[in-house]
């Protein structure tokens, strides 16, 4: 992208729409070259935050810095930031080539440079043959790539992606996610993605900020937010989680299903233990630590694996074992102390 690496710094951004706090005191640091994802349910403020970064929305308070420059008051036209819109927002009256060239032509780049840059982007995104088509002659995946090319041709310091996969079918989406990740690594620019799809966030991101009600609940690498959620919301939003409330005691936590030894003691005295269904191991005999005896209440076939719903509980275990379980079977569970996370509250 541009030669100089510019970090994006979001400081104390607030935005209200009437009574609704769309963005509530959000601060984030996105180093140059990072693939950063804003993840959250609809209405959590992630798109508003993205639009504020793009300059399409002005914050009520707070600052946005790109490199050392304060761009808070800059209109969208002055920011080296480009967006891939959820609807793609391609210009329907222009060809693919003209769409991609738009950002260069509007800034009166010399024709020769425009042609070079546009052709290169079209090539990178596999659109060489599509240059003279119009958007309504393209498939969903092609439109998305045109939208990407149109933004990337400007070599922005930050590329913003507003749910760019939501219009694609599941199979294509999985493929595009990997391609997007590769593209970002190849070009080395800062990408900020907005999505409500936790799998997508985990696949593509260097870091994820999980948002809810306008606030950032937790930010970290995919491993951090998935393995070490801090709150129940984050634990449940990023995939399935068994949640057991209890009181902290010496060396562990007393829950409804018994005492569980913990490796890392939390700073709080009450809490909820979270454990992912796929982390619970099934044993034939009582394990040494954190063994729980349970009875299978229900077996759910999921294709590649089974979900077992157990009593006491409800505890959910995900297993890909070849051993078939039946409703009513008694099994031992091992909840490894190092994999138990105590959530605050």
């Amino acid at each position, binding site marked *: 992208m541009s030669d100089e690496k510019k970090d994006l710094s979001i400081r104390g951004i607030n935005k209200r729409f009437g009574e609704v706090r769309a963005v509530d005191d959000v601060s984030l640091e996105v180093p140059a070259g990072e693939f950063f994802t804003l993840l959250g349910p609809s209405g959590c403020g992630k798109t508003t935050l993205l639009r504020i970064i793009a300059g*399409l929305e002005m914050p009520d308070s707070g600052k946005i810095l790109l490199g050392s420059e304060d761009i808070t008051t800059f209109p969208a*036209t002055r920011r080296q930031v480009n967006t891939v*819109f959820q609807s793609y*927002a391609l*210009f329907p*009256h222009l060809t693919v080539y003209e769409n991609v060239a*738009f950002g260069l032509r*509007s800034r009166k780049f010399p024709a020769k440079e425009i042609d070079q840059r546009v052709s290169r982007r079209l090539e990178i995104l596999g659109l060489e043959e599509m240059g003279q088509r119009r958007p309504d002659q393209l498939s969903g995946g092609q439109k998305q790539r045109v939208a990407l090319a149109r933004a990337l041709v400007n070599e922005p310091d930050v590329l913003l992606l507003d749910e760019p996969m939501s219009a694609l079918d599941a199979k294509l989406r999985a493929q595009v996610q990997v391609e997007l990740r590769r593209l970002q690594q190849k070009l080395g620019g800062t990408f900020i993605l907005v999505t409500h799809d936790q799998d997508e966030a985990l696949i593509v991101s260097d870091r994820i900020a999980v948002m809810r009600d306008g606030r950032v609940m937790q930010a970290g690498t995919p491993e951090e937010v998935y393995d070490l959620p801090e709150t129940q919301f984050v634990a449940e939003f990023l995939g399935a989680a068994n949640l057991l409330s209890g009181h902290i005691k010496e060396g562990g936590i007393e829950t409804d299903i018994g005492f569980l030894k913990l490796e890392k003691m939390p700073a709080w005295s009450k809490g909820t233990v979270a454990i992912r269904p796929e982390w619970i191991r099934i044993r034939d005999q009582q394990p040494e630590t954190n063994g729980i005896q349970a009875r299978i209440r229900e077996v759910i076939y999921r294709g590649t694996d089974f979900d077992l719903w157990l009593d006491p509980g409800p505890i959910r275990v995900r297993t890909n074992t070849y051993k078939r379980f039946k409703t009513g079977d008694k099994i031992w569970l091992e909840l490894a102390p190092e994999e138990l996370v105590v959530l605050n509250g």
Partner: protein
Amino acid sequence: MNRSHPLITALAMCTMGFLYLPLLAVAVFSVNATKYGLVWRGFTLNWYVKLFSNELILNAAWNTLVLAVISTIIATILGTILAIGMDRFPWSGGTNTTLDLILHLPVVIPDIILAASLVIAFGLLRLVFSIFEPGLINMIIGHITFQVAFVALVVRSRLVSLGSDVEEAARDLFASTPYLLWRVTLPLLLPGIVAGGMLAFTLSLDDFVISFFTAGPDSVTLPLYIFAAVRRGVTPQIHALSTLVLLITIVMVVGTERLTRRSAKK
């Protein structure tokens, strides 16, 4: 789809007949080779030929065309600007509702009221500027006043259906306001602008009331000529003239309809 009762279908057919039979009759009599009476005496295009050798009618046709073209061009430009201004400027909710109402009013206000108020307005202006004597200029201004609202409404519905996404994308891609308008907004609005203009043209072509109140002795238009002629007795020439005006109107309306439907689909 529900199959409707035969009676309802019959009623609908009757209504259509009620609407179109008189028009059809005018068209039929315009090619009837008899000057008086309602008897069919054979096909002729004689009345049309005579029409085009009638100095008065040709003059009225010319006036009508000049009036319609000039007023339509100005009204289309003003209406488009009005629509863009109303839709793209961040008015507060209350202001927006008021503007909406103001825009719809000229559409529903009876022409006669508008005409009467124009007479008063021009009367006052005449005290200061002599160009506001009854005549073509007054008629053009009068036509523009009611055309603008129709153009703005058509263009605005196109603007609303376009949404703001594409314009935001253009801004995101560094487009200044003039560049945005010229390269994105106006090209995308074009079907709406043309449809609005065609509607305005049709309205001007057919207008009688406003023209009647604002016309001078030298600015007789076709509707005014037909009105005057009919009072002296309906001649087949008038039938021919009416049929021509009707045909032009139909072509314009169908064209408008097609354009708006195509833009709605996009």
